[in-house]
């Protein structure tokens, strides 16, 4: 279990990336959503011990991350997939996994071989295991990064934009993998801009903006709040009068361009079932109903 209590993170120069955040993560998959620069990566770096909070407390399995024991513990139980992969181009896929397994503390060669074979299978890189990393495609590198983060069957898995660059089939495969890991009793924290990944995978969602939490709860609850606030219309005049930030999508239909928008209705618009994306946009544009 991870507990974050009143955490602040201030960068030199006085900018506050994280502003009084308190959270608890139990077993399951958690989604972290927010616009660019909201503080998601800072929060994840705080959780993995790369950054230290300016104030506040982070505990993992009851051990404070500020203590040496806590830092040692988090390295044991943690799997981390950063946004920017630090892979070594001269090594082959198999060697890279073996190298990270060694650094992770897997000393037995038999165990490492087994682990590497399992991970290659999991991320679909069996055929590429002898290829050098510099010769892999962008998507294959991302899959290798995912495999590295899964070394040692981590109890806590933190992944930053894991599906960026993956093809649809691989995305689905990885989402299922995350769900399985969550169901096995691990804590999985997924940060992404792909709202669909969160909708399909996460038990709970945290929306963060300007370093503060805007929403914490289940995907269905947030979507419920958006009921009656998502509309479609094909009337061009109505669309022209709308604030661009309220527009969600436009789609060519037989009877003209159907535009989906959020917030208050227009005379000719009809209401539709909200998605998580609609709810998220309502939330970050501060357009949810006052009872939210």
């Amino acid at each position, binding site marked *: 279990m991870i507990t974050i209590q009143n955490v602040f993170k201030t960068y030199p120069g006085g900018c506050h990336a994280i*502003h009084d955040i308190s959270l608890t993560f139990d077993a399951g998959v958690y989604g972290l959503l927010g616009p660019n620069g909201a503080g998601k990566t800072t929060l994840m770096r705080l959780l*993995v011990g*790369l950054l230290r909070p300016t104030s*506040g407390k982070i505990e993992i399995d009851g051990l404070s991350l500020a203590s040496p024991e806590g830092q040692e513990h988090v390295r044991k139980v943690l799997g981390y997939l950063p946004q920017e992969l630090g892979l070594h181009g001269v090594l082959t896929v198999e060697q890279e996994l073996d190298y990270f397994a060694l*650094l*992770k503390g897997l000393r037995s060669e038999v165990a490492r071989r087994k682990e590497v074979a399992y991970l290659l299978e999991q991320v679909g890189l069996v055929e590429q295991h002898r290829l050098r990393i510099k010769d892999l495609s962008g998507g294959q590198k991302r899959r290798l990064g995912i495999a590295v983060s899964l070394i040692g069957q981590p109890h806590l898995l933190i992944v930053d934009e894991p599906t960026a660059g993956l093809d649809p089939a691989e995305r689905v495969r990885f989402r299922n993998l995350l769900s399985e890991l969550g169901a096995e009793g691990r804590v999985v924290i997924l940060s992404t801009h792909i709202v669909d990944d969160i909708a399909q995978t996460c038990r709970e969602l945290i929306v963060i903006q*300007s370093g503060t939490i805007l929403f914490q709860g289940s995907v269905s609850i947030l979507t419920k709040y958006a009921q009656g606030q998502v509309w479609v219309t094909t009337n061009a005049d109505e669309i022209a009068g709308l604030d661009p930030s309220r527009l969600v999508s436009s789609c060519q239909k037989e009877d003209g361009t159907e535009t989906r928008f959020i917030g208050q209705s227009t005379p000719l618009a009809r209401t539709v079932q909200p998605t998580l994306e609609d709810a998220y946009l309502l939330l970050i544009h501060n357009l949810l109903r006052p009872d939210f």
Partner: protein
Amino acid sequence: MDKRILYYSGLIWGKLPLITAVGISILAVLLACTDTNTPVSLRPEVTTRYLIWVGGIGAILAAVSILRPESPGDIESLATVQTKTSRVILSRWAIVLTLNVVPAWGALLVATLLSGRPLLATWASGAIAYLSAIVLMGGVALYFSAIGRQSLIGIVGGIFFLLVVTLVPIPERFQAINMLRSGEAWTQPNLWWGSRLTYISIGTALGWMGSVRLGDFDYLLTGRRATSAQSNPSHRTTGKRTPNLFPDQFFAFGRNALPLGSGFLANAWVYDAWQVLLRGAFPIAVLSLVILTCGLACFGLDWEIHLAIDAPRSAMLFGTLIIPLLTCDTIPAERRMGSDQLSLSARSLPAYLKDKVFGNVAVVWIALLIGALPVCIFYFLTIMMDTRLSIAALVMWSGITLPYFIYLTAISTQLGALFGGRSGYVAGVILAVGGIILYVLTGEIPLLNYLFPCGPAAADTLFGWVQGFPPERLSGPSLVVPLWTLVLFPLSALIQIIIFYKASIAILLRRSA
């Protein structure tokens, strides 16, 4: 540490030390076999000096490559490693040191064997001198890289340190403390061994402190040393990170705020030069400072001759080491940043390459101007009436040094382009090592002076001409009169640049087809 970890670390970080090792081995054998200006019995010492220069550069580059503080990928990949990060970094450093030092010791052994001197004693002093210098250089670079949170600061800091310890004059009776000397091990043993021990201790201590700092991820990512969590911080409104540390600002100023609208500057190469200037103020400053130091580090020497001839000659020697490292990575860095659209949006591949070459040349020219101008002013203030020496100074700076720097810059930039998306520093090391080997060979082979127009033989000729000797009485290769040199050197450089440019374009076009 597990032997597999050592093996993988060798694979990942061993390339630079191995290239250096090959380079210094060739250099050592060349010096031991062909250096006719030095008596055979003194060749091991001379070889050691050259090896420390070249090997020192290799040690600096290898040390900073083991963890680049500016790369979040490098840092974050260590987040889950079980071993303490500082230990991981120290073990990587030990590997690159070993890969650098052991082959150099082998090369020194060959040089000693060829000299006919007592094998063990001569070799041991050279080997210890080399080891202590390499540990010190690597430690300095690692430390600078860590505290500056930029591997480039480590490279430039290390090279500058090497330059300072090489150029600062030491009184004859204290020559035993000279980092480059090995012969004093037997004439002044206490001072010599004491200084070697000190260098190793300082290098190790700096390397250790650097590795501890590199293990402080909070510092690397934010620029502030992590102590304990601070209480009651004064919180203002939240916002994005805007690091305001000196090194960050120094490297990044103008990166996001180029005051250039499209069309403001007609030629892309001017824009490139402008961009290089803004982004690379620090390397430019260092190159200028190196040239200036070469000019002014002549206490105890003949002022006039030094300022007119020796200063540009030593600037060329250090330029051979530094310019490839500053310019080789220009195009690979852009590719690594994912800005392929820059090359794609250029009119054509040849135009893109030409713009980059011209941009870098303009910047190096500015650096040379900044560095050489005070030296020249000082020279004219010192001796205004000596016409021959004035002509010699003019020829050395504008006829030899400038074309040579342009030549090096153009070749380095193009060689970096041929390396594709890989690190241009590898190309830089190859060129720096190759350049030093050619530099040494130009003292032996007159014709090579025109093929590799670096100028030591021209400097010797000019020196003789200033002294009033007829050219046939000169000990070095005779290179015709200065005014001829003024034409021939730039011409040779220009022809080679054009040939290399055509060849690079042909290769790049074939590769992209």
